[in-house]
């Protein structure tokens, strides 16, 4: 069976939304991009030939984010808003509850400060657990490029976190 099943696509909805939510910077635009990506993916599901369905779906979401940014012209640098914080992050696990809110806020700010190019590799690797090869598929770049982008992104993150500490 080479066509990807709708169930397989639906099972990656959280991954699709999480990526869009980080790249778009707000829930409304993220929802629009994800819904549009699903319409495209569902229409193309019969033509899907091999590969990893999740990577394929995420590449559609990712391209949707980029073209949406182009449409919006400017990426709005959304200020961190305490009321927005955690609006749709689900029920915190007991483990998450023990992480102090300040740490979570600082890490979120640091990730939000990254360029989209850095942000997407961090989200795909650290939050979605994709392999370098799968990330390469999503961002349409060689594995070596993924590795160097991740390196750069982590250096930027380390710097941003250090700066916050003052």
């Amino acid at each position, binding site marked *: 069976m080479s066509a990807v*099943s709708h169930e*397989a*696509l639906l099972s990656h909805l959280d991954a699709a939304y999480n990526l869009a939510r980080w790249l778009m910077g707000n*829930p409304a635009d993220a929802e629009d991009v994800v*819904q549009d990506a699903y319409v495209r993916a569902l229409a193309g599901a019969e033509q899907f030939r091999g590969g990893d369905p999740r990577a394929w779906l995420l590449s559609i979401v990712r391209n949707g984010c980029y073209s949406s940014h182009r449409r919006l012209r400017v990426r709005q640098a959304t200020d961190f808003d305490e009321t927005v914080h955690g609006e*749709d992050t689900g029920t915190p696990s007991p483990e998450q509850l023990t992480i102090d809110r300040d740490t979570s806020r600082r890490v979120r700010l640091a990730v939000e400060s990254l360029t989209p190019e850095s942000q997407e590799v961090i989200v795909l690797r650290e*939050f979605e657990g994709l392999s370098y090869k799968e990330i390469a598929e999503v961002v349409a770049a060689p594995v070596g490029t993924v590795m160097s982008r*991740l390196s750069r992104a982590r250096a930027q993150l380390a710097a941003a976190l250090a700066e916050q500490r003052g």
Partner: protein
Amino acid sequence: MSMNCEDVERFAGAYADGELDLERTLALEAHVSTCAACTTRLDEAHAVKHALRAAPYFRAPEALAARVRAAAAAASTDATGMARQANILRVQRNRWRPWLLSAVSLAAAALVFVVVLRERAAVADDATTEAVIEGHVRSLMAGHLVDVASTDRHTVKPWFAGRVDFSPTVVDLVTDGFPLVGGRVDYIDRHTAAALIYKRRDHVINVFVWPQATGSPSHVTRSDVRGYHLISWTRGGMAVWIVSDLALSELEDFGRKLDAAMHD
């Protein structure tokens, strides 16, 4: 291969991610063991990864999930994906149909292997795990990867006759991107095992197979030891262990295809 501080800087992230190949892993570890600055560098790489665990994960809101499910139901009744709007109206009447389709395709897709694989079973029998890793490393280090070098399964399978007292199923996965390299007889944890060697790019995958009488159904375990990924299961009276330094997701993909092809 040897590494200097610049190389370590370049590869520290991939090392922390478990994405570095065996040769570079060994070279990096050799350098780090003698370099305090690079030890700090590796610690930092792990620290950044650790800090990111505090980041929020955004789950899809229920309203979005409902809209996407509706779009999927509409697309199911219309395979071409055209005229989706019109079909949304028909969904009411045909509500049973997407459900039936779902049930059938789900049943087809839900090979026992996949389902069981997702449930991270406990770490397998430690002694066998160690023996499998030893077998893998030995095959790489001694330059004794294969006894019979052939990409043709019709050459590899008969070669085992008379060398092991069972007949391993040898499958061709070249179209899936896992070419067969050859076969070897190995000795794993008191079992005489048939070793089948496949490759993915430069990564070697050892598949060890030996007879194992067990009444229990397919029982898949995964483990991750010193940068190696292992997946094992039992089916049709044979224990199958696959080991590689390949990324886990790729090795899982290989395992699914191997299991499916062996029981085709």
